[in-house]
Structure formats: C-alpha cells, structure tokens
C-alpha cells in the first residue's frame, strides 16, 4: 500500500468541526465530535490527524489523545470500510455471540480488529447494543442486525 502524505484537515472537516463549537461553552468540548468528523472522512484517526485536530481546538495533543483512547468508537488504527460490531454482552453471549464471532472471522479470514484483505471489513466486539430482546445482534456500519442465527454470515454479508 502506498503511504499517503498528510496534507492537513480538509476544508469540509474544518467547517464541520467549527460549526459544532457554537453549541458549547468552550472549544475543547467538541473533541469527540471532531474526532468523529475526521473518522467519517478517513475511517480512522491517524497521529497526524490527531495533532491537527488538537491545534484546531487549542488543546494539547496529549489531552486529545487521552480522550481519543478512552472511547470504543474512536479508531486509532486503520479499519475496513464497514466495521462490524458484534455484541458480546450478557444476553447475546448467552444466545451464541461467540459462535457468531467465530463464523464471521472465519468467513473473512481475519482476527478481531484486523482488516479484511480487500479493505472492506473489520470485526470488533461491542458492549450491549440495547437490543437484547433480539439477541444475538450486531451493528454493521450504522445498521443494527437483529436475531442473528447460525446463518449469521448470510444474514450479514447477503446472499
């Protein structure tokens, strides 16, 4: 893969981040939103991006890093185009989330957190998705998939 040169945050990113600042008493408050905006465009937050965002918000990169590493949904490593979060909390675990994880990983031939060779997918565990009455469940990109079965591979990747 060729290494991309970082050319700073895009005008669109900067505009969206600045728009968020009006809702809070100070700029630091938009840290998480800013990281999520960057991630929307780039899928993950590289060191270069982190430093650029910190500069934009007038906080130190260390402070922003402390926030970035705290959250499950901020990726500090490259991830696939679609992240599949399978729930491994109590009800989903009880109803077979381990097997679902195994099947998905085997299908894509990846371990947890790795990117599939075509760059399309990354599989990560996530805590209870608030759909326990439909366990086991997963979130594919932005979308919840409910009532998964032993056919989870088909249910998630289509026929």
């Amino acid at each position, binding site marked *: 893969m060729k290494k991309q040169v970082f050319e700073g945050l895009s005008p669109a990113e900067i505009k969206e981040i600045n728009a968020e600042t009006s809702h809070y008493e100070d700029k630091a408050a938009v840290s998480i939103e800013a990281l999520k905006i960057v991630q929307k465009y780039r899928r993950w937050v590289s060191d270069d991006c982190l430093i650029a965002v910190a500069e934009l918000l007038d*906080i130190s990169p260390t402070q922003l890093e*402390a926030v970035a590493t705290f*959250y499950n*949904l901020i990726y500090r490593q490259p991830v696939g185009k679609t992240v599949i979060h399978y729930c491994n909390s109590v009800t989903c675990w009880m109803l077979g989330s381990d097997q679902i994880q195994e099947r998905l990983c085997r299908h894509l031939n990846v371990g947890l957190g790795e990117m599939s060779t075509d760059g399309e997918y990354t599989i990560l565990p996530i*805590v*209870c998705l*608030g759909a*326990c*009455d*439909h366990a086991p469940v997963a979130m594919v990109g932005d979308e919840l998939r409910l009532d998964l079965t032993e056919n989870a591979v088909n249910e998630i990747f289509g026929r």
Partner: protein
Amino acid sequence: MEKMNKPLTKNIRPDRAFATLADYESTGGYQGLRKAITGLQPKDVQQWVKDAGLRGRGGSGFNAGLKWSLVPMDANVPQTRYLIANADEMEPGTFKDRMLMEQDPHQLIEGMIIAAYAIQANTAYIFLRGEYHLARRRLAYALLEARSKGYLGEQVLNSAFSMEIVLHTSAGRYICGEETALLNALEGKRATPRAKPPFPLVTGLWGKPTIVNNVETLCNVPHILHYGVEWYQGLGRGVDKGTKLFGASGRVKYPGLWELPMGIPIREVIEKYAGGMRDGYKLRGFLPGGASTDFLLPEHLDVVLDYEAVAKAGSRLGTGTIIVLDDQTCPVQMVLNLEQFFAQESCGWCTPCRDGLPWTVTLLKDILAGKGRIEDLDTLAGLTRMLAPGNTFCALAPGAMEPLQSALKYFRDDFERYIVGSHAIMEPA
C-alpha cells in the same frame, strides 16, 4: 381513552416507524408543555412532578421533582443552568431508552422542554450513546420539527422562555452514563467521574447548576402535566407511581419490552408477557434490572416491581429490564461475562476498581479452567466487600459486585463443582 394507561408507549407502533410531530400532536402531544408554560410557574411544575411521585428511571430511583427543587434558582445566583438527558444506555441487558427515542422522539423533547422550564435552563443536551444511529437521525429530525413549530428556540410558544436542545453523540464508554463522568465527557475531557459533593445540581456542566435525568424519566413528564398528578398516581399498582418499561431477555418464549404499572409482580412479566421459558428450559434465576443488579431466584417471582420491594428481596429495580438465567446456562460463566464487561469499562481512576475487577476476572477464569482452589471463593467474597459502596470513587464497581455476591450466595454449588471437579481430575486413576 383505552390507551391512557400506557402513556409512554401510546404512539409506539409494531412496525417500528416513528411518530412525527403531527402524529405526536394528534394524541395530545405538547399539551403538557402548553399547560406548563402558559399557566404554571417553574416552582409549580417542580411541585407537580414531585407530588406525582415520579422516581428516576436511570437506576437511582430519586424523585425527579424533588431533585429539580434543589437547584439554586434565587435571583442572586448565576442564571446559567443546564439540563441533560442521559441517553447513554449501555448497561448490558437494558434496551428501553432506545425504543423511546427511536419511535417517539417528541415525547423526550417535550419532557426536556418542560424540565428545562421547571429549572429555568435555556440550554439542554441530549447525551446520546454513539451506537444509537437511528435514534440520532430521528431525534435530529424531530428537533427540527419542534423548532419549526415554535416549541423550541426563542420564546417558546410565545412565552418569555427560550431554550435550545443540542444533540451530543458520544463514542461508546459505559462510564459516560455516570452523571459526573458524563459532565466531563460533555466538556471534552476524559470521562472519569467527579467527586460528590458538590453535586451536579449545584456545580455541574462548566461549573453551572445541572440536572441530569434519564430518558425514560423525562418521557413521563409531559403526561404528568397534561393529565395531572392524581391520574399519574392512579397508574401504579403498588407503592410506587406511574408506569414503567419492563423487559425480559434470555431464553424466554417472547423476549420483549412492555409498558406496565409500577408494582406489577415479576412473575407476571416473565410468565405472562414474556410467555415463560422456552420449551426445554427451566428458570434458574434472573437479574431484575440489568447487569449491575443482584440475582434473584424463582422463589422471588412474586416480588413486585417497586423500588423498595425489590430492594427488600436483596436486589435493585435498576433499569427494569430483566435478564433471565436458564437451567442450561452456567451461572459462573455468566458472571464471568458480566465481570469482563465491568473490568473493560472501568475508567481506571480509583485503585480498588482498576485492580479489583481484573483480579475478579482472573479468579473466575481460573476457576472455570479447573485451576481454582476453594479459598478463591473467599477471595471473591472479599473482593465484593472491598469494592462495596463507599470504597470506590463511583458506583460502577459496587454495581459490578452485585451479580457476583448474589451468585456466590445462590449458586455456590456451581462454583464448587469446578473446583471439586478439578481435584477429582488430578486424582490418580
């Protein structure tokens, strides 16, 4: 009038579509707000909600109106105040706030405007869990609708009261639901809890008086204002007032979520609404209100779902969503799954929790791997005391100990089986 005993879910449809502003208004929506803002003083609104007996649905059970009445509001204190809807729902086994936000977003918005009016807060935040994408889209749409109709913004319903609601989406971390950690998260800091006192209602977001209420708590508010205190009190079957969302997940026939009167027996939820256990499975026990509540047993099925009644039985009403343990799931493995969650989600701020939870996980794993010793059970019991309320900086660790301490009490044989078993294996044949 048939639906009047289900105020929270009256707009919720089986097809999971959401109630638009027009739908919401057609069933009495925004009438409560109109009444509050045109006819009642903020103090009156506080009093109504207090008298109604609405208790916090985020787990604490604190009277919502009473909490509001403690916010400093005299003329000589700073006039900036905040209201926050805690929509960080992440406690394993809990799936109630998502439905309320996805399918009837205006109910939350109206509840927030009334609550903000009651404490005279001009800015409110919805602190939404990052994974709730559909809720985010629907709330964002509903906020636009509410603004365009004058329910939000400058001079709400042409009154002197103005307010804005900001939708903030988080990025996934259980501790953010703890109200003081939530304040740090909202300020863009690492989300570790703050010392209490001072309580957020005096010194909260950016140091200003701040009320944090659960989504479901706020969703009750419009109905109290619209239909009155007496009507609301009449909804409960037992000591506590109103209705609540109760749910059941696990190996029951029909897992789901139902709006039911407070004070309903647990048996009715599990047997009538959830249809009892799936064929071939027996009920072994249950966590009555999410991952951080103590196990109860089938002998507790007749306990009613009131805050004190569940506490007397040795657990907590918590979030009201029951996690069912069947006879073919190992309680020790279930507790390991729960403790792994808590260990992972510990914010690491205080030592007992940061060290104690991973230690708990290690001990449980060893026991399950047949490497446990009988003394390990004493060590685990010791940990439940070490991480008890008062010994840690926030309630995460004590919550984590609830399912463990009750499992040690009720399912001790299951723990010992792994230990005795391992010794048996080591015996020469």
